[in-house]
């Protein structure tokens, strides 16, 4: 089963929730940190990193001895990653989305693929909890292909918890697509609600069941709860704005380890998710 933890708004507690579910369930769980622009789940799970792997994406390499400057490659490229001026071919690597279209349309067979480094994957574990994160190369803007690589490296036999990036754009979709359940972490503030609505709209398009965790649930107003009710979104867990939790967090400690009564609450959260997924006909993944 794949549970993707998302939020819309940043800073609502995605990483906190992801890490605590993983720790509450223990062995047989795998945590994927897909916030590749700013991965931080390792700071809380504290896994032992065992190895890493470089991730590259294919980009075109043009053989000027074969090229006739016909422009078919630049015409098909939606992102203008290729430009032909006179008898020169320019490749703008950072604009290339690696679709292979240019290679497919080249009548001369002048285009082959070479690699461009996107970042790397780290593999590790802690107490039987598997861990993978992706780390985007500084200066790189193309995170979805790296997020897909983090997910491709996952072990489908395990319960997979994905810590998704914030927002509602392509990187988040890459971290939610194909999940069995989306757990939205929000806070009862106007900002939290505004971005939650956008994120829920994106999840609805993907057709994946969704539920809420309301963090710092006793601040702000009641509008997140009213929205949840009107949208038929179950509130599966509420976490109070508790100074002890904030202090533990600031020291890199986890809720279920510092406050044992929360372990059962996180397990209960998982059981509720499992029940919703089973009701919908079970998991798409082992």
């Amino acid at each position: 089963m794949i549970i993707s933890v998302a939020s819309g708004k940043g800073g609502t507690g995605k990483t906190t929730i992801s890490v605590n579910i993983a720790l509450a369930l223990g062995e047989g769980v795998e945590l994927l940190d897909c916030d590749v622009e700013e991965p931080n789940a390792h700071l809380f799970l504290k896994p032992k990193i065992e190895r890493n792997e470089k991730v590259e994406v294919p980009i075109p390499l043009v053989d000027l001895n074969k090229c006739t400057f016909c422009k078919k490659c630049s015409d098909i490229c939606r992102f203008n990653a290729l430009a032909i001026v006179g008898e020169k071919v320019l490749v703008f690597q950072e604009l290339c989305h690696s679709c292979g279209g240019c290679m497919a349309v080249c009548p001369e067979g002048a285009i082959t693929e070479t690699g461009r480094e996107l970042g790397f994957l780290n593999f590790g574990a802690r107490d039987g909890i598997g861990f993978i994160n992706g780390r985007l190369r500084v200066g790189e803007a193309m995170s979805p292909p790296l997020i897909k690589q983090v997910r491709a490296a996952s072990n489908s036999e395990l319960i997979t918890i994905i810590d998704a990036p914030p927002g509602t754009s392509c990187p988040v979709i890459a971290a939610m697509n194909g999940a069995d359940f989306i757990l939205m972490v929000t806070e009862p503030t106007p900002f939290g609600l505004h971005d939650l609505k956008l994120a829920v709209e994106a999840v609805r398009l993907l057709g994946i069941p969704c539920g809420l965790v309301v963090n710092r649930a006793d601040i702000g107003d009641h509008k997140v709860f009213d929205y949840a009710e009107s949208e038929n979104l179950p509130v599966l867990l509420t976490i109070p704005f508790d100074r002890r939790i904030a202090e533990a967090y600031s020291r890199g400690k986890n809720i279920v380890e510092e406050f044992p009564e929360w372990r059962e609450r996180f397990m209960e959260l998982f059981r509720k998710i499992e029940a919703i997924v089973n009701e919908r006909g079970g998991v798409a993944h082992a």
Partner: protein
Amino acid sequence: MKVAITAKGTSLDSEIDPRFGRAPYILIVDTDTLEFEALDNSSNVNAFKGAGIQAATMVSDKGAEVLMTGYCGPNAFVTLEAAGVKVVDDITGKVRDAIKTIKEGKATYATAANKEADW
């Protein structure tokens, strides 16, 4: 000499558009005869990415030797450089004013982009 000038409209009295890749029109003007062609750049205005590259290719294909605009980003600059099109940036006013500037030999050619790439 053929000069490409980014414009908000289709006449020599149109205001210069400071953007290169996403200007609504690019006028290709013959500075000797003042004959010109107004290229509709609207397909580029809403381009995902690489509007400057596309506009640079178009300008080069039309045989312009110089581009006059407000801002030129790094990818557009590289493309124009490869095509042998010189860039005069930081241009304001009307298309007619820009033509006057270059005819009087008062234009300064840019040696680098004067704007960051858009994401």
